[in-house]
Each structure stands twice: as C-alpha cells, then as structure tokens.
C-alpha cells in the first residue's frame, strides 16, 4: 500500500465533504429564529417530543408571524447530554444567529447553556428543567416550567397537616431529585412528620423492586416519590406488584410520578395517589379543555406538564416580541418578559420580575377515574406560588 497516495486521496475526499458541510442554512433576514435544544433521542426523548409537539401546536393555532416577523424554529437534539447541549447552543448562536435559545430537558443541559446566553445576550427560555438554581446562573434565563421546590414544599405541608406521620422517601439521585427531597423534608419535619427511610436511586434504573422492598419493610404511612417523568409508570407498576397499595402505604410526591402522558397506562394501583403539581390534563378550565382536545387530535396522546411548559414557553416568546414590536435585542426581550402575566392551560401564571422564574398555582390532586380513564383530579389550590428555593435567601 502507498501511504502517501492514500493520504492524498483521503485528504481530497475530506475537503470535499467538509466544504459540503460548511454550507450553513441561510434564512430570511426578517425572521426571528428560535433555537430549540431538546432531548429527542435517549431516555428523556418523551420530554423533548412533548415540548416540540406543543410548540408546533401553538404555531399552528396562532400563526407563525409576530409583529411582522416570521418565526422560525430550529430543533437540535442533545440527547440530554450537557456537552452536546453546549455545542448545539454555540452552533445555533454563532452560525444560525438565533434570537432565542429554548428547551432544555434536564438541569445540566440548562446550566451548560447559561454562560452562552450571558455572553451572546440572548434569552434562554427553560421549558423543562426544574432545579431552583438555574435562573440564577444567567440574567438572560427565563423559566416557564416549574421548580421542584414549588411542589415539594406544598406536598410537605399538606402531608404533615393531613395525618401522615411517617414517610419513607425514594428520590432519583440528581439535582432535581435532591431538591425534591430536601424541600419536602424541611416542611414535613417542621410540621411534625418523621422520615423513616431515605433512599436515593440512580437515575438510570431498570428495576425498583429492591428499593421498594426496603420501603415496605420500613412500614411508613406514605411513600414520598420523585422520579423523572417517564419512570413513573415503572415505579407505580412495581409499587402495586409489591403489594404496597394493599399494605395501605400511599404514594405522595411532586406530580412527576403521575405524569399525564403515562398515567392512563399505570393501572388501578395508582388510584388515590396524592401529588402536588402545576398541571393536570383534567384542570377544569375552558382553555385547558380546548388545549387537551387540540393536542389529542394532533398527536394522539394526552399532553403532560412538559407539553404545557413548552406551550407557555413559546407563548412567552410571542408575547415578548409583540411587546418589543419585533425588536430582538436580548435585554429588551428579557425586560418585556419580566412580570408578564397570562392565562395558561394550567391556570393563571406569571414571570417573577425579580428572579425571572415562574409564579404559578400549585394544585393538590388525587388520581381518580373519570369516564373510565385515570386523571389527576385537583382538589385544593395554592395560589401564585413562587420558587421558595430562592425566596428563602
């Protein structure tokens, strides 16, 4: 073989390939570009798809022009891996010259993009990740999803006041899970409750059985659970299999475990589960009924809270653009977003002008059967809850 010729010819080929790839997509000058970075593959893919679907739905309903400008959405897959998020965000900002970056399925992804938003001075709209600290990492971050502190605090209070004395906790071992655990523990123990067993499970976890057995042996009144959206189904199945429901141990927690998009397949064991959360597909408002119906019609499944966060996220972008009259200056957009209030399918929400985090109602819900389908039925409302993870400081 001849190394020389081989190298030369390879090099020529490589150059040809590279020049092909270097042709960046050129867009119209008058467009507003939104770089949507979501996990479209991998374990978190359902989150990404819900958000993408909701955004598509919104743009179908409201049209794709705002203040005379055409909205263009560029979707990038990061597989929930932070370094891919960062590369994607950089590419979007530098090459595609996007005016917003949005999406972010998991906390590390949102954090990875934060310094870029600051440097490029463009708004980063977080539509999924739920750790408190995120919005503190850049003055350009706005969140339309939720923080775990919001729901964990409230379910902690609720549990302590409603005759639950001993609780065993099972939380995923990563930042949101630890938030969920700590904020719950704080309120619950302050209210006189006792944590009898505390287990952190690895994020990628095939089989909950041994952990659940541990929970069962601790004989608590209730089981406090936080697992990421998507794993809830598995958890509930095994909870039932282990007979914890028969042993009278109820499940409580933030609403991720009974996420609407999987809830209906979880079986009757899930009945009676009490969770605190921002959104239920059964939320009794006309707007939500329309939203659920339209979503079901378009994508054949029930929207979960991730879909609503995406829907509200794109709404926020639209409204901010309207307010600035199509001006895409990042600082002006952020100013426009601060303090914005609107009616969402989940209820009335607003953006806290101080923290740029979401302020929303948190509902206490119980899983019930409605017309043969399982739903989270809301029975108590805590209005305009701020993120206590930050207000504390």
């Amino acid at each position, binding site marked *: 073989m001849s190394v020389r010729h081989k190298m030369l010819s390879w090099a020529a080929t490589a150059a040809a390939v590279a020049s092909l790839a270097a042709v960046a997509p050129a867009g119209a000058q008058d467009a507003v570009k939104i770089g949507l970075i979501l996990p479209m593959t991998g374990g978190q*893919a359902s989150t990404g798809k819900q958000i993408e679907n909701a955004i598509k739905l919104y743009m179908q309903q409201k049209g794709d022009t705002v203040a005379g400008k055409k909205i263009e959405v560029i979707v990038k897959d990061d597989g929930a891996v932070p370094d891919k998020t960062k590369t994607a965000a950089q590419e979007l900002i530098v090459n595609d010259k996007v005016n917003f970056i949005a999406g972010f399925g998991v906390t590390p992804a949102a954090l990875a993009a934060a310094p870029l938003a600051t440097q490029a001075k463009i708004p980063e709209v977080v539509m999924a990740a739920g750790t408190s600290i995120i919005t503190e990492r850049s003055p350009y971050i706005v969140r339309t999803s939720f923080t775990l502190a919001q729901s964990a605090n409230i379910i902690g209070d609720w549990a302590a006041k409603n005759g639950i004395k001993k609780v065993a906790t099972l939380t995923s071992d990563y930042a949101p899970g630890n938030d969920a655990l700590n904020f719950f523990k704080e309120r619950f123990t302050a209210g006189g409750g006792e944590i009898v067993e505390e287990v952190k499970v690895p994020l990628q976890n095939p089989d909950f059985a041994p952990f659940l*057995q541990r929970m069962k042996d601790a004989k608590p009144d209730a089981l406090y659970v936080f697992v990421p959206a998507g794993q809830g189904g598995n958890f509930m*199945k095994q909870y039932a299999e282990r007979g914890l429901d028969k042993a009278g141990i109820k499940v409580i927690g933030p609403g991720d475990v009974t996420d609407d998009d999987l809830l209906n397949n979880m079986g009757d064991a899930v009945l009676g589960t009490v969770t605190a959360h921002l959104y239920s597909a059964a939320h009794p408002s006309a707007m939500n009924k329309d939203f659920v119906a339209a979503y079901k019609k378009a994508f054949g499944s029930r929207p979960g809270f991730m879909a609503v966060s995406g829907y509200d996220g794109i709404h926020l972008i639209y409204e901010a653009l309207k307010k600035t009259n199509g001006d895409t200056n990042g600082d002006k957009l952020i100013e426009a977003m601060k303090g914005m209030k609107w009616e969402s399918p989940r209820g009335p929400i607003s953006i806290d002008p101080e923290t740029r985090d979401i302020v929303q109602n948190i509902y206490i819900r119980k899983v019930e059967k409605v017309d043969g389908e399982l739903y989270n039925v809301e029975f108590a409302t805590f209005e305009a809850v701020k993120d206590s993870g930050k207000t504390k400081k």
Partner: protein
Amino acid sequence: MTSILTNLFDGVAYGMLLFVLACGLAVTLGLMNFVNLAHGAFAMAGGYVCMLLVNKSGWPFFAALPLAFVSAAVIGVLLERTLYRHLYTRSHLDQVLFSIGLTFMSVAAVDYFMGSSRVFINLPDALQGQFDFFGVGIGRYRLMIIVICGLLTVALQLILAKTRFGSRLRAAVDDPRAASGLGINVPQVFAFTFAFGCGLAGLGGALSAEILGLDPYFPLKFMIYFLIVVTVGGSSSITGPFLASLLLGIGDVAGKYYVPKMGPFVIYTMMIVILIWRPNGLFGRTAAR
C-alpha cells in the same frame, strides 16, 4: 429473615429473566462465534408485538406470549437469511459495526412507529400483586417468570443434550466442515438456532416489559447486561450463562437492598473479579478458540 427470602426470590426471578433474554446471545456468540450486539432488538420486537396484541387487539396475555416468541424468531430468521449469513466469516470488528448499526436502526424505527414513551402490557388480574407464603412476600408475576423460565431452561438443556438436533448443532459448531461432510446441513442448523435464540429473546422482551420497562432504547440499555451474562457464564454450555444470570440477578437485587448507594458496583466488581479469576468465564472452555 423473611426479607432475605423475598430478596432472594426477587433476585432469582430477575436472573431468570436475564437468562431468557441473554441465552440466545450465548448461543450466537458462544457457539456460532458471532458478536451480535443487536440481540436486544429482537427482545424489543417481541415485547412490542406482545404489547400491541394485548393492549390494542385485546388478546389474552398468555396467548400473546407465544406470538412474541414466533414473531421475534421470524424476524430473526429473515435477517439471518438475508444479512447475518454473509457475516459469519467476517472479522469481529465487522460484526460489531454491523450489529450496532442494526441496533441504531431498530431503536429509531420503533421510536418512529411506537413513540418514545415507555409502554406497558395490560396484565390479567391473576398475575398482579403479591401473596404471602409463610411470611415471605411472593410476587405473582415474578413467580410466573420463574416457572416459565425454569421450564424453558430444562427444555433447552434436554434439547441440546438428548435430541438429534442438539447433537447436530454441537457437531456443526465444533467442526462445521466435518459436520457438513457427515451430511449435516450446517447453514440450516445455524439458521434454526439463530431464530430460536431470537425467539427466546422476544419472549424475554415480552416478559420483561413489566419489570424492566419497555421503550425504544431497550436494546442499548440492556446490551451490557447481556454481555455480562455471556462472558461471565462462559459459552461451553447453557449452564454457565444460567448460573451467571442468577448470580447477576441476586447480586443486583441484594446490592440495591442492602447497600442502595453502592448498587451498580456490586455487579461490575463481581464481573471483573470473575473474569480475572477465570478469563473464559465460570464454565468456559479451557482451550482458546
């Protein structure tokens, strides 16, 4: 005390499940010397077929299980005849490249057709919940897994050791040329074995939906577990992978129960130690192939 027994029971059930999932791989990798990393894709196919039949078409669960086996086996034999056949003589690296490619395709295709959310199979009431057996909690579903997988193991062992097909297979593996000289149709034997392994994986996939969760990423997530079973168990017989599966299952469950924070260590450390101690697996052939 009772919790130890319950854990043991759970571990055995988990291990048995791994065995059914992985033993097809033990055959292709161990006996036919083919690195098929796409094995999990066949399991996933079986799982989704079973899910569709039960949830969408209303078949009873027990009727859908054999179909999960059959469909995975049919897919297996089709791919074997069209694609895999050409790769038996190629290098291991080629086989790895090919089967990973196939895995990627299966993942994306299932994602496209079935969505990326986890799916569950609606189980009959008789299989749900747990009953008490002298204070030991026995999950009905897990008990069923143990029974089915136990029977399968015995049947497999008998087929391999006692039947004419078993001896043909062993002959074909030990020396394909001599075997074909004796009038054994080696490609046919291989195709049949491959299909059977895929069928078992399909059955395993259907059974595991309840415990491991079924989503498009199944083949990638559990590839490592299958490989562990096969390498730790060695490939000379199915006894090795069987014991390795049990060890893995019990080790995993016990590790999570007693030292929840150290869960994954237990398995990986166990694997490394065993492989250092016996590089060809617990029941490996001593002579290198």
